[in-house]
């Protein structure tokens, strides 16, 4: 009896705690709304007063939204016309833009890391809660805890860098910053409050870990991770609204005067594509960083237990990262489509004009990512007995991947000396020129992703023999599915050359659908088939070549570099505008950097980030006594859901 009442009391307390918690979370929202209306010439207030007293106030000037084309009352000042002077662009004896670039990029790296890691925690902690096996459950829980610990240090660095960004902005671009903050004032206030809420939640989440270890409290703890991530995501979306506004402004008129509708200013046409793309990108990036951390610990490990633990951790992180990497190209495709729909010029500058060379570098990086992911999976097959059956197929997959990359990397416009140009007889090569266009690229990348899925399916089966009755039929179906998917993807790529562009662009949808069919049908069918399958041998964590671990580090570095590159592309497509077509950049740095300079800057940022994050890792390792209770080498340890 006594225990039951104790449990019931616990429950009540838990509910109360959660309620207070949610209430506190919503508080900033309630606070920010009237606050916005009170001290700023906010939309509601001004329209209301204008409607109430039209007689004695001078008539409110109306103007037209540049994007939504709606009429609205002019409540803001026009975008300032800057001049190249110390007033608008105070400066050190250095390029201000580059200083801001470094500050922003570092802030973004840390920001995405601390946004991604709690999502990992949420997933892993949840896995721990639902797992029946006690030892396993504890292992998951410990992993999630380790993640948070790393992210805690990174979180304070993020805040620090955020401060640096604001100061840099204020001191180097005061006029521009003044204009942006005049429009986004209520958003910025909300942002600040949410940031406080995020900090609070994160600290409670971390420090209450041990107190909330059992029973219902654990569930609340899991719920807290959900809330933490909701706040984090909203924070990111608010920050995205600023950059989206700079790229595709809305909610202002052609002079840049704010029209009083804050939702229009936030919800610009590129906002949601950027939100989705960034969320997925953060996750892939976070996975990469954690995997690199695990690889680093693996390589420096002294004992088999350590190696086993960090091999497993690297695999889990890599797995989550790749899960988010696969939809990333599709999100990117959506973003580009929206860019083209917004301004065709902007799209062409990105993909075919001034910045096209950067996209070729991006293609190389994507190539590196997928090759590395495949390579890691193949190396991981060393952990299992029975994998020999499949290893002989690796060479064919390597071959398919390389062929696709040859197509994928063939530039549309080739770099060549005038002599080579003459020898070739024109800008376009009669054979390779055909690989330079979208049809071929789509075919290549979809084949690459399908092959990656195939690698994963083979990895899943490496140490298993399916025993279900319908296994032969299942295998035959998998064979048919993948064969025809390849045929279909390549056929659509070729078909694209024979039909007009407006029909051709539509072909990418069935191509993607084919790839996704393989991913979902293939992986699900395979998983069902492997239910109760005969084990040839256990997964021996830690028994993987060092090459596999270097692959993880390579993966993480590619992610970091690519993030820097894509951010640079997205930002520099505005060319000489602070806010596209609204506020012109009249500083002496309103030019596009050379490719070499850009690449060096990105490399510098990547290097800087990895040096500082190594410091964070080192800090994290100071507090660790020993690797937590791990299963002895050779025993079955968990793999993420769906992998076995």
């Amino acid at each position, binding site marked *: 009896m006594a225990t039951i009442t104790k449990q019931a009391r616990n429950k009540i307390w838990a509910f109360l705690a959660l309620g207070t918690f949610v209430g506190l979370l919503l508080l900033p929202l309630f606070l920010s709304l009237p606050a916005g209306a009170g001290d700023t010439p906010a939309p509601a207030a001004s329209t209301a007063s204008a409607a109430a007293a039209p007689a004695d106030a001078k008539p409110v000037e109306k103007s037209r939204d540049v994007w939504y084309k709606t009429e609205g009352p002019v409540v803001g000042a026009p975008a300032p016309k800057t001049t190249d002077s110390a007033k608008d662009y105070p400066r050190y004896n250095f390029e201000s833009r580059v200083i801001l670039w470094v500050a922003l990029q570092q802030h973004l790296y840390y920001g995405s890391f601390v946004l991604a890691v709690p999502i990992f925690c949420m997933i892993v902690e949840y896995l721990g809660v639902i797992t029946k096996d006690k030892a396993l459950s504890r292992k998951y829980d410990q992993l999630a805890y380790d993640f948070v610990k790393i992210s805690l240090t990174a979180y304070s660095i993020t805040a620090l860098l955020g401060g640096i960004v604001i100061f840099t902005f204020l001191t180097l671009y005061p006029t521009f910053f003044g204009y942006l903050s005049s429009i986004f004032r209520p958003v910025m206030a909300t942002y600040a409050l949410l940031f406080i809420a995020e900090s609070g939640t994160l600290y409670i989440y971390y420090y209450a870990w041990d107190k909330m270890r059992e029973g219902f409290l654990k569930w609340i703890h899991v719920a807290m991770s959900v809330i933490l991530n909701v706040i984090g995501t909203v924070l990111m979306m608010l920050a995205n609204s600023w950059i989206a506004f700079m790229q595709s402004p809305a909610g202002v008129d052609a002079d840049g005067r704010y029209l009083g509708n804050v939702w229009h200013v936030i919800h610009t046409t590129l906002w949601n594509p950027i939100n989705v793309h960034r969320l997925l990108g953060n996750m892939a990036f976070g996975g990469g960083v954690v995997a690199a951390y695990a690889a680093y610990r693996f390589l420096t490990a002294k004992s088999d237990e350590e190696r086993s633990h960090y091999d497993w951790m690297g695999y889990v992180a890599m797995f989550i990262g790749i899960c988010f990497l696969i939809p990333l190209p599709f999100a990117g495709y959506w973003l580009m489509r929206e860019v083209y729909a917004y301004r065709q010029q902007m799209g062409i500058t990105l993909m075919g004009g001034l910045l096209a060379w950067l996209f070729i570098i991006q293609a190389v990086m994507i190539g590196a990512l997928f090759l590395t992911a495949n390579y890691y999976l193949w190396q991981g097959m060393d952990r299992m007995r029975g994998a020999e059956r499949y290893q002989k197929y690796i060479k064919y997959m390597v071959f398919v991947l390389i062929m696709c990359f040859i197509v994928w990397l063939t530039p549309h416009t080739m770099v060549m000396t005038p002599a080579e140009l003459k020898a070739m007889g024109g800008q376009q090569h009669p054979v390779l020129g055909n690989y330079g266009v979208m049809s071929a690229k789509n075919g290549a990348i979809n084949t690459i992703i399908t092959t990656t899925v195939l690698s994963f399916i083979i990895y899943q089966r490496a140490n298993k023999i*399916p*025993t*279900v*009755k319908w*296994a*032969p*039929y299942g295998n*035959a*179906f998998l*064979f*048919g*599915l993948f*064969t*025809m*998917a390849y*045929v*279909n993807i390549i056929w*659509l790529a070729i*078909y694209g050359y*024979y*039909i*007009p562009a*407006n*029909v051709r662009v*539509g*072909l990418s*949808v*069935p191509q993607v*659908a*084919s790839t996704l*069919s393989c991913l979902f049908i293939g992986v699900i069918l395979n998983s069902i088939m492997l239910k109760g399958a*005969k084990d040839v041998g256990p997964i021996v964590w830690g028994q993987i070549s060092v090459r596999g671990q270097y692959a993880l580090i390579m993966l993480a570095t590619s992610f970091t570099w690519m993030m820097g590159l894509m951010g640079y592309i997205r930002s520099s497509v505005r060319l000489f505008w602070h806010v596209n077509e609204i506020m012109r950049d009249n500083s002496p740095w309103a030019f596009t950097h050379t490719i070499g300079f850009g690449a060096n800057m990105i490399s510098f940022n990547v290097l800087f980030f990895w040096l500082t994050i190594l410091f964070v890792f080192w800090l994290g390792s100071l507090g660790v006594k020993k690797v937590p209770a791990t299963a002895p080498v050779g025993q079955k340890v968990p793999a993420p859901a769906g992998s076995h």
Partner: protein
Amino acid sequence: MVGQSREITTGMKIAIAVISLLVATAYFTFLDWGAMKIQGLDYFYMFRK
């Protein structure tokens, strides 16, 4: 082993493979057609006069 309760001959294996290829072909053709249809486009554009 449960799976071997019924012997599967090479001929049957080929038959199963061919059938699964046909099923997959039908599936992908339908997918292509449908994915184009929802965009308001005609998958069989080239084959229509």
